[in-house]
């Protein structure tokens, strides 16, 4: 016995009274080892399991017997411990029978390796796919968030209905006012996820969470070590402190407790570690590894009122419902302007707040997608089970004589029944084990390919709940295995099977009907899935064909972030000018530019922008609100590098660096704000009424910034170089984009050299091709399309195999009849057609039902589709064609086989 087995046995021995155990313990262990070895030599691998089962029964039995023995003598005789020995003998008999059944089942299945393999594979696919998808569904949608009382957590965001922002950030003053005045929340915290440079030489990029002191208490999870932030940490000029995530603690400090109190460099600033959070701790799936306190300076409140950058998380007071919180919010919105006399305060119409359950906000958008996938794999499992049922009917039929013979020789029906159930059990357990392995591998693959497509993906794992689910599915399938063949084992049939000299003329019409239902059902379900997949594929192709507004090929990109501690705005702007100049000199580089936001998917900025031609004294709420969706700070060469056509006027030129302030706009902006005037020469302010005017010198074609599936928003382009002198700031976080025919791996060392020549402490961030950037922006639709495509393909193959199998069986069953008909003069074409017609008519019925179902059900896909109607006729026609072709192929082989039946062989054979 292995050491771990010995340990397990020692644990088992704790059931025995201590005195007995102390006297015999070591010897018991030796004897147990001998017993397991004995059972192993007797029964093979199975013996280990049997041996252990008996050892457990033995210890439990002895423990009961010894304890009873100590009871007073007046207890009834029925507790005679020796009776237990007899019971043990009975148990032993049962176990031996079970072993016998198992071995018989395994032998029977081994004799038909083809059948066994098909069954196990089919089951494995069905169970594996279900387990994998359920693992994701469970972790993402079903499981509560990993905080204490997660149902009390709400996400609080702002809304600007007039500008079309349904869910927006909140500014610090708004946060403080809501935190202090609301009556529904125990605590309200705010956070902002942001990447920072960690360490030096070379620094790494980590995701940080800039949080208010109330956030961690609101979430409720205590730190693993150290402390949360306190109010003192967020006052101006407080000591710089940080809290590590478990993951960062492991990576940077190898999980050493001494990390507490040590100093780390965050964006070049020495910061003391004051806490460590437990493993997996996060907020809103931001994957935050480093927590930093947000500095709040009450002195600057009025100035920061328009600077919206926080998401709020609140914990409801116990007993308060979200409806009550929303009602209270309306009261707050009404009173806000009275309490805070300012034009920019939240109100009930133009600047609202909204409250959503935190989990709902995180996973709401994927719930439907995952439920659809779960539905799809459930359908795949149904088809798989239909195929299995059919296989088992056929097998039961072909073994009817065996059963009849055994029953005639005295095997009881229960014995045969037990035999069948055991075979079913072996098959489904093997299927479940293979399926589980498949799910495990599939899940690994899935998550490694697509880590960003679904929220909470880091929480996904195959766990005991999922395992139970797998076993449940396997158990249900075992029941089907057991029950379906038994339908054919009525007593009268047994006798008849013996009398029948092996011919198959006894096909009951019930069974033929059942088979037809199986074919129709399988085809219908396959149609449903293929239509769904077809719609998603078309939709995805549409997405990929969307004009993103720039020429995506031959572009590579990387990001650089300049720490504010060592670069003032003028230096920041100069740095990116120098960097692009350096890269422009690299041989093979055609053009280069730096930009603050990377299309096609970036965060909206929604900045107030004051157009000179729009009067400022309009009544509040007049449209259009002077707010631009995207501000893009760039360096010279932007339009040229990205391949964005200049529609009107000109692009930025070298002379603009240091020249009078100019700005470019996109077509959408012109349409919204400048439709009635010539845009060129119009002026606007970006930093309040006293700031300099920027003159529009050109109009660029629209570029997608909010995702390829969204309409392009309004966008204006600023020249980063002009910003410090005009508005006293510059963008310190820029993406460098390079147009070159050279591959990324040739360019990368040049980029690194160029950056390190300017500042060796700066890391390159997210170095990749622009194609990858676009791909990443459609990760979720791709994930959905890929999975549903795989499941539909699986369903199609399984349905085809099922149809083929059933028709083949019908042909085999009618072998004799076909032979006789041929002998009587039927020609081969007629036979071929009759079989083909049977299969095709069944498939046609399935196809019709499937199409009807998909027209009824495809509406659930509506939110996942882009530019495709849920009842897209082209897709439906295509799917019908595919299904008809596959069905015809599945029917043709058995039909052809039927037509080749040799009447002489058939007649002689009987």
């Amino acid at each position, binding site marked *: 016995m292995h050491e771990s087995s010995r340990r397990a046995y020692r644990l088992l021995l704790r059931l025995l009274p201590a005195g007995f155990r102390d006297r*015999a313990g070591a*010897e018991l262990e*030796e004897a147990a080892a*001998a017993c397991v070895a004995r059972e192993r030599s007797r029964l093979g691998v199975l013996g280990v399991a049997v041996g252990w089962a008996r050892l457990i029964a033995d210890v439990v039995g*002895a423990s009961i017997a010894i304890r009873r023995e100590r009871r007073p003598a007046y207890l009834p005789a029925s507790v005679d411990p020796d009776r237990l020995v007899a019971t043990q003998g009975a148990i*032993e008999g049962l176990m031996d029978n079970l072993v016998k059944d198992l071995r018989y089942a395994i032998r029977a299945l081994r004799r038909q390796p083809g059948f066994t393999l098909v069954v196990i594979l089919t089951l494995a696919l069905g169970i594996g796919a279900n387990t994998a998808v359920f693992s994701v569904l469970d972790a993402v949608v079903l499981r509560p968030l990993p905080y204490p009382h997660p149902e009390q957590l709400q996400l609080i965001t702002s809304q600007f209905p007039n500008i079309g922002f349904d869910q927006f950030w909140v500014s610090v003053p708004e946060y403080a006012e809501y935190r202090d005045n609301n009556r529904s929340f125990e605590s309200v915290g705010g956070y902002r996820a942001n990447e920072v440079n960690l360490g030096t030489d070379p620094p790494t990029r980590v995701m940080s969470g800039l949080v208010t002191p109330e956030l961690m208490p609101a979430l409720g999870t205590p730190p693993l070590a150290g402390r949360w932030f306190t109010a003192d940490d967020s006052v101006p000029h407080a000591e710089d402190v940080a809290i590590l995530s478990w993951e960062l603690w492991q990576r940077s400090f190898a999980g050493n407790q001494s990390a507490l109190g040590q100093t780390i460099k965050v964006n070049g600033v020495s910061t003391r570690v004051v806490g460590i959070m437990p493993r997996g701790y996060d907020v809103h799936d931001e994957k935050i590894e480093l927590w930093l306190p947000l500095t709040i300076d009450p002195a600057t409140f009025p100035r920061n009122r328009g600077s919206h950058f926080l998401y709020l998380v609140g914990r409801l007071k116990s007993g308060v419902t979200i409806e009550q919180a929303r009602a209270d919010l309306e009261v707050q919105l009404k009173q806000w302007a009275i309490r805070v006399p300012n034009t920019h305060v939240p109100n009930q119409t133009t600047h609202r707040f909204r409250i959503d359950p935190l989990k709902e906000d995180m996973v709401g958008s994927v719930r439907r997608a995952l439920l659809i996938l779960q539905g799809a794999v459930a359908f795949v499992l149904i088809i798989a089970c239909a195929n299995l049922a059919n296989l088992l009917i056929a097998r039961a039929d072909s073994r009817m004589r065996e059963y009849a013979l055994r029953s005639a020789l005295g095997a009881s029906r229960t014995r045969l029944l037990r035999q069948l159930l055991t075979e079913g059990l072996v098959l489904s357990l093997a299927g479940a084990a293979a399926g589980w392995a498949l799910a495990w591998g599939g899940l690994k693959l899935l998550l490694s390919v697509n880590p960003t497509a679904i929220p909470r993906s880091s929480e996904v794992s195959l766990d005991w709940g999922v395992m139970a689910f797998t076993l449940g599915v396997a158990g249900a399938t075992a029941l089907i295995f057991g029950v379906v063949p038994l339908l054919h084992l009525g007593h009268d049939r047994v006798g008849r099977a013996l009398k029948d000299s092996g011919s198959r003329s006894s096909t009951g019409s019930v069974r033929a009907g059942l088979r037809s239902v199986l074919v129709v059902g399988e085809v219908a379900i396959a149609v449903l899935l293929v239509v769904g997949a077809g719609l998603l594929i078309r939709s995805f192709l549409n997405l990929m064909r969307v004009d993103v507004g720039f020429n995506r090929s031959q572009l590579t990109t990387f990001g650089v972030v300049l720490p504010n501690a060592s670069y003032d705005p003028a230096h920041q702007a100069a740095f990116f000018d120098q960097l692009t100049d350096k890269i422009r000199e690299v041989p093979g580089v055609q053009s280069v530019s730096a930009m603050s936001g990377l299309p096609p998917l970036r965060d909206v900025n929604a900045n107030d922008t004051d157009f000179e031609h729009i009067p400022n004294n309009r009544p509040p709420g007049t449209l259009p609100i002077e707010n631009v969706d995207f501000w893009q700070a760039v360096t010279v060469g932007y339009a040229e590098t990205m391949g964005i056509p200049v529609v009107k006027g000109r692009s930025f030129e070298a002379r603009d660096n240091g020249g009078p302030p100019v700005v470019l706009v996109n077509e959408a902006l012109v349409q919204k704000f400048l439709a009635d005037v010539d845009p060129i020469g119009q002026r606007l302010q970006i930093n309040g009424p006293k700031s300099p005017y920027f003159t529009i010198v050109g109009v660029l074609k629209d570029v997608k910034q909010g995702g390829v599936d969204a309409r392009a928003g309004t966008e204006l382009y600023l020249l980063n170089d002009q910003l410090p002198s005009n508005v006293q700031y510059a963008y310190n976080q820029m993406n460098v984009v390079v147009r070159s025919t050279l591959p990324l791996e040739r360019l990368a060392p040049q980029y690194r050299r160029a950056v390190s020549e300017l500042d060796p402490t700066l890391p390159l961030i997210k170095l990749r091709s622009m194609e990858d950037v676009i791909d990443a922006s459609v990760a979720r639709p791709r994930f959905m399309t890929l999975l549903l495509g795989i499941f539909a393909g699986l369903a199609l193959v399984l349905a085809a195999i099922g149809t083929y199998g059933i028709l083949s069986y019908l042909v085999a069953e009618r072998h004799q009849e076909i032979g006789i008909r041929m002998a009587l003069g039927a020609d081969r074409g007629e036979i071929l057609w009759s079989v083909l017609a049977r299969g095709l008519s069944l498939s046609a019925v399935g196809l019709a039902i499937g199409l009807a179902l998909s027209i009824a059900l495809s509406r659930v896909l509506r939110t996942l589709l882009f530019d495709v109607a849920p009842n897209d006729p082209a897709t439906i026609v295509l799917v019908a064609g595919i299904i008809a072709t596959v069905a015809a192929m599945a029917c043709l082989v058995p039909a052809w086989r039927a037509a080749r039946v040799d009447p002489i062989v058939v007649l002689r054979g009987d």
Partner: protein
Amino acid sequence: MSTAPPLPPHWFQMLLALADRDLHGLGVMQDVLERSGGAIRLWPAMLYRNLQRLEREGLIAETAGPPAPEAGRPRYYRLTAAGRRACAVEAERLAGLVAVARTRRILKKV
């Protein structure tokens, strides 16, 4: 024939194992297994519990056993006189039954 209640079969087997030599528990288990051609398989906890009971009934007793090198050596048991008598009584009883089987021609005479 004795009027004493019949010895439980597994007790009889265990006593038989100790009839001609002193054994430890595992030895008893193996002797019973071999003698019965693998039919009677004893399991550790029940085996030791029954050894304890046999000892308490005075049918077997702990003995020094052969000298063994290691310290944690197992406990050996020997058959007591009472044990030998009980075993004989049971054997007699069984022999009586066998004799009946012979006269009724269930078994052939030797």
